[in-house]
């Protein structure tokens, strides 16, 4: 089927043009809604990708794998822009941000979407690197946008660790080119992913191994895998909440996507090390580490940031295990985590605004003071903790059962991590949602639709997955090997 427009151009062009326009629109209200509109157009174009055939040019690529990521990216980007329109107005009233900041914020939001979309569509590993760097840079600036001491510290830490990660990833990228060069020749071809995967079986395996270690550590820093996660909780806690939602829901996925692309390269070379065990190890360490760390958190955004580390660990573990079933579980879990975690951050953002604090100890009895927000949070946390019938439960169940069949010991460790995290989530939820009511009872002007939509999708997915989606995920899971 042919479309009257090229969706790739729309997906990349809309955020780029919108960023330029948003930088000059003086009114923040117009800016906020223009931001929503641009995200909606991007989402529509992303959805239309299902209709076009696969496409590979030296720079851009559309295949089964990245469509999943692009559509998820555009969807959460859109709902976040809706959430941010309501959230940001409150920040203006409370004086934390000025209209000039907001103009800057909206323009950067679109630059970030552009960077992430480009990273997902890029067929060239160099271009992908540049795009991830761009997305990182914009989020760094947004994390520091409140300009408090804490926010600047967080942005600086994110900056330095992110830059080191990205530098290691570039070294890995150069090594991949070095491995490719004797086989595919000099020049552009040596960086085009579709060319690389075709010839990778003839590459020097030792060089590929070293390259993958650098790439895994480099992009793994951006995924937030322990022990490279140090930037993540600070960045989540100190930045504006829409950015926390996008960081957890999207940017971590984009970095993981980069790791997956290189994992596919390694897997296609029979002599190279198997990339799976390394990913399983990092994933498992992240799950268990984050699960214990959850108990010591006193800041609500930081708490959910550690939960993101845990879930990225689960997803990395799933893709590291490999095989159709575990990959399926990984893809499903990634989708569910993005939806649930961003919904949680939406409600946490409103809660922190109305209570005027992010400290867990000062937030209590939410279901009584703010029933809608409170119950949204309850459902969100229940979903992220993996209670049935949420989609997270289904993906975790799939992952655990498929792991039990192949590596029982690993499965036991994974279940242990999941249970420990489960305990921490419910323990905190108990006081925050059902404890003695505390703090302000002022009504919120929250816009609930984005959170409801996300949570509804998560719970519907737990009960019924459309067969078309299952078939699609199965196909992608097969291609992931």
């Amino acid at each position, binding site marked *: 089927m042919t479309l009257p427009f090229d969706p790739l151009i729309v997906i990349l062009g809309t955020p780029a043009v919108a960023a330029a326009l948003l930088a000059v629109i003086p009114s923040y209200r117009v800016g906020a809604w223009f931001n929503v509109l641009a995200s909606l157009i991007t989402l529509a174009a992303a959805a239309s990708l299902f209709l076009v055939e696969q496409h590979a040019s030296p720079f851009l690529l559309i295949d089964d794998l990245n469509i999943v990521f692009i559509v998820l990216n555009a969807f959460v980007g859109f709902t976040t822009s809706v959430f941010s329109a309501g959230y940001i107005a409150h920040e203006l009233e409370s004086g934390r941000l000025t209209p000039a900041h907001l103009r800057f914020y909206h323009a950067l939001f679109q630059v970030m979407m552009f960077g992430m979309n480009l990273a997902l569509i890029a067929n060239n590993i160099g271009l992908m690197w540049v795009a991830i760097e761009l997305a990182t840079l914009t989020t760094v600036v947004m994390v520091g946008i409140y300009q408090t001491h804490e926010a600047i510290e967080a942005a600086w830490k994110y900056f330095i660790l992110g*830059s080191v990660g990205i530098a*290691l990833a570039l*070294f890995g990228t*150069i090594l991949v080119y*070095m491995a490719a060069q004797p086989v595919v*020749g000099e020049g552009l071809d040596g960086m085009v992913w579709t060319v690389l995967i075709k010839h990778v079986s003839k590459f020097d395996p030792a060089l590929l191994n070293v390259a993958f270690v650098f790439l895994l550590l480099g992009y793994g820093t951006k995924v937030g895998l322990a022990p490279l996660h140090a930037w993540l*909780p600070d960045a989540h806690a100190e930045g504006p909440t829409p950015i926390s939602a996008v960081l957890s829901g999207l940017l971590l996925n984009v970095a993981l996507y980069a790791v997956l692309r290189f994992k596919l390269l390694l897997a296609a070379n029979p002599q190279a090390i198997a990339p799976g065990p390394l990913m399983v190890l990092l994933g498992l360490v992240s799950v268990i580490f984050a699960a214990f760390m959850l108990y010591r*958190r006193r800041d609500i955004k930081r708490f959910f940031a550690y939960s993101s580390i845990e879930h990225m660990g689960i997803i990395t573990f799933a893709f590291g295990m490999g095989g159709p079933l575990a990959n399926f579980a990984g893809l499903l879990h990634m989708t569910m985590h993005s939806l649930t975690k961003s919904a949680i951050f939406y409600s946490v953002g409103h809660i922190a605004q109305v209570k005027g604090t992010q400290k867990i100890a000062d937030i209590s009895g939410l279901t009584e003071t703010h029933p809608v927000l409170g119950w949204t949070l309850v459902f969100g946390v229940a979903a992220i903790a993996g209670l049935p019938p949420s989609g997270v439960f289904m993906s975790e169940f799939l992952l655990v059962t498929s792991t039990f069949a192949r590596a029982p010991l690993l499965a036991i460790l994974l279940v242990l991590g999941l249970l420990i995290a489960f305990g921490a989530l419910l323990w905190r939820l108990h006081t925050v949602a059902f404890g003695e009511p505390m703090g302000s009872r002022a009504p919120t002007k929250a816009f609930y639709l984005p959170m409801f939509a996300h949570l509804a999708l998560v719970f519907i997915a737990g009960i019924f997955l459309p067969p078309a989606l299952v078939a699609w995920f199965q196909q992608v899971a097969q291609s992931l090997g």
Partner: protein
Amino acid sequence: MSGYIFDTAHLFAGGLVLVSFMMLYQDRLHALINVFALHAVVLSLSVAWQAYTQAAPHLYVTVAIAVAFKVLVIPIALHRMIRRLGIHREIETAVGIGQTMLAGMGLVALSMMVMLRVTPEADPLAREDLAFALAVILLGLLIMVTRRNAVSQIIGFMSLENGLILAATGAKGMPLVVEISVAFSVLIAFIVIGVFLFRIRERFDTVDVQALDRFRGERR
């Protein structure tokens, strides 16, 4: 012919590692910045030599960026900045120089062992370049972890980036080298502006655990 091409490239790449070592023991910021400028000069020479021997004129753009940006603009800006921030007299002793130098030697040995072992079939020049580049990258990381001052962390990062440029230009015919060096320049400009605007002096300018807890929101 190929003998002197190899030797010259080898000289510049080895020189870069040597200058990285010089950075390790500078305890005054002005001196550190001057050594970094020297680092960038050596890198420019190395890249220019690669551009000449590989007949790759686009690499001269990378040379121009390195000279203009890293030899001139950034060091001058940093010199002015540390005077404005009033930290030009500070002496850093985060980790002793002796241990740092020993660790640096260990890292160089490590990178030689790793890179030379995995690339026996590669072009010998690219192979040596890659080993030296990894050494420069690791030494840059070492500078970043042993220093507490934001300015010296930036310098550590920039020397790390010089190592990446060395690796990228050493890989014959690698595409996007110029774009990547532009992207890095933007990144560094961002960092420098950020430090200046927000007057970040040290990442954690206190060893007071309570202050750290406050920053991490861990205090009730």
